């Protein structure tokens, strides 16, 4: 049986603004049904790269191909993926149920009780069943993120992007969210791309990853995060996974 085609193919991507190049020679594949992490320190361009993957920006050069249907910034019609933004990005004037129903009423002919059933099921999937009629301002940050995940899943995408899902959450909420991500990937077979710098999350959820570095203007390592932690000889990658500063590793070397 031939190996299945990667879900996302990124080839020789160059991104930036005007004449300023932020990253170049960015090449990686993401396998179907896996959880892939985009890692790097603050300002390394993780979230920026995500904006290109979901088609909010047009690359200067190179190619992004999602599911073999072409470049994300050229998509028209039903988006083939769902996105969880850092803040959850729920519409504050709508209840959670209305937020979730929005993509369904926009892109499908489904109406009425069926919409309510689908919305309620997704809210229950992320543990927010009793909060359907709450406004985003009435729930906590962690709950907003879970509601954001539910909304991202409303069109049953095979691919989900998460931008810093654990940022600003307490450790328990962060672990609950990580477990939800693992469940989504395992039970629903969804490909998940997650942008983060939270080490516990990375080891819990990610099958493979790339590590970005702003000084290298691109990818400095790729592979299984546990293997990179244990075996990488790249100083930045070693420091990143062992939570140490460059000075500390120099001192350790003495």
């Amino acid at each position: 049986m031939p190996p299945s085609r990667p879900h996302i193919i990124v080839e020789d991507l160059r991104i930036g603004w005007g004449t300023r190049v932020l990253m170049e020679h960015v090449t990686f594949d993401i396998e179907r049904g896996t959880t892939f992490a985009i890692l790097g320190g603050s300002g390394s361009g993780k979230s920026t790269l995500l904006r290109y993957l979901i088609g909010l920006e047009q690359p200067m050069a190179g190619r992004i191909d999602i599911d073999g249907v072409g470049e994300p910034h050229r998509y028209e019609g039903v988006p083939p993926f769902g996105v969880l933004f850092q803040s959850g990005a729920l519409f504050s004037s709508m209840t959670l149920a209305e937020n979730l129903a929005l993509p369904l009423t926009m892109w499908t002919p489904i109406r009425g009780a069926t919409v309510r059933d689908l919305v309620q099921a997704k809210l229950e999937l992320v543990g927010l069943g009793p909060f359907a009629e709450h406004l985003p301002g009435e729930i906590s940050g962690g709950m907003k993120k879970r509601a954001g995940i539910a909304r991202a899943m409303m069109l049953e995408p095979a691919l989900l992007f998460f931008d810093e899902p654990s940022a600003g959450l307490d450790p328990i909420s962060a672990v609950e969210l990580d477990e939800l991500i693992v469940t989504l990937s395992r039970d629903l077979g969804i490909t998940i791309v997650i942008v983060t710098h939270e080490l516990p999350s990375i080891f819990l959820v990610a099958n493979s990853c790339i590590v970005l570095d702003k000084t290298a203007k691109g990818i400095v390592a790729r592979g299984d995060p546990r293997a990179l932690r244990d075996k990488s000889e790249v100083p930045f990658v070693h420091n990143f996974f062992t939570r140490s500063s460059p000075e500390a590793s120099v001192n350790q070397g003495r």
Partner: protein
Amino acid sequence: MTIAVRAEREGDRGRLVPVGPFDLAHAPAVATAVAHIPPDLEGCRSIDVDLTHLDRIDGAGAVLLARFLDRLDPDGDRARVVEERNAEAARLITRYRQKRAESPPARTRARSALTKIGAVAADLPARVIDTLDFTGGCVAALPKTVASPRSVDWRSLPRLVQQIGADALPVTSAANLLVGVIIGFLGVSQLGRFGAVVYVPELVVVAHFRELGPLVTAIVVAGRSGAGLASEIATMKVSEEIDALRSMGFDPMRWLVVPRCVALVLVVPLLTWVGDALALLGGLVATVAITDLTPRAYVLATMDAITANHFVGGLIKSPFLALAIGLIACGQGLATQGGAAAVGARTTTAVVLAIFGVIVINALFTLLYVVMGV
């Protein structure tokens, strides 16, 4: 493509066979297929759900099938999804059934029109108290501002004067000029019937200097700067900047409200004064254009009509109108709670209240002048 749920029965054992694609793209057809419980299955002791003939299933299809099974078997002990034949689909359906069983019922927010009216009425005393509280806070802030000038963000004052004053000058000037033209035309058409065109300059002076000049300028400033100030402070409130100010020991009333009100009080009389001058020009253009009155005669008649009473009587109102705009806009901004939608709602309320407020204050001044015989 056929989408159905076939039901078969052997004695007290039933069998359900979903057929076709059970996914989001076919959700309306799936919803129709699972809308009714087949009568064949009533009274069955056990029901096997055979997923062999499912072409496709995703979360949406699984939810609809899970809800169907919930209705068919509320206790969850009769219907059994046969996992061996389509393990992935069975897992998906089971996940949505389990979650359903674990969750408590959702609370409802639906409210009738009568309930809404009641809620607004019940909210009224709290709103009045909030308004009084804010007014009291402003009054209390004044002596504190004098005692501690550093508690006010004076550095923002030049920027505010620029935004509220200089940037608004074209629009207030244009509005006043046009009002002058309108009074001129109106005066000519009405006074002309009695051969009293020569009194049009006096009409423009009295009507505009005493009433319309301060009012028109204040309404334009309320619409323009009132909205700007309210939305700025409302955005600061929802993005926790006001909380940050408080946490650092700043009083938002003094730090934010005082410089904005001071800027308005300084600038609105100046805008009114410029507006008065342009209204005279508008009246002159209108009158000279359609009557035999010469520009020189018009200017001389205007000079005779301008008295200190008219001029000062108008300008003295402007600071009060400006203060009302500032307090209403800042008060609404600080009262914002919620997200982006609340910013819009508060801004709208601020503009409406500010315009209504300046009209009421102007009317009160007019009444006062009449009583005083000014």
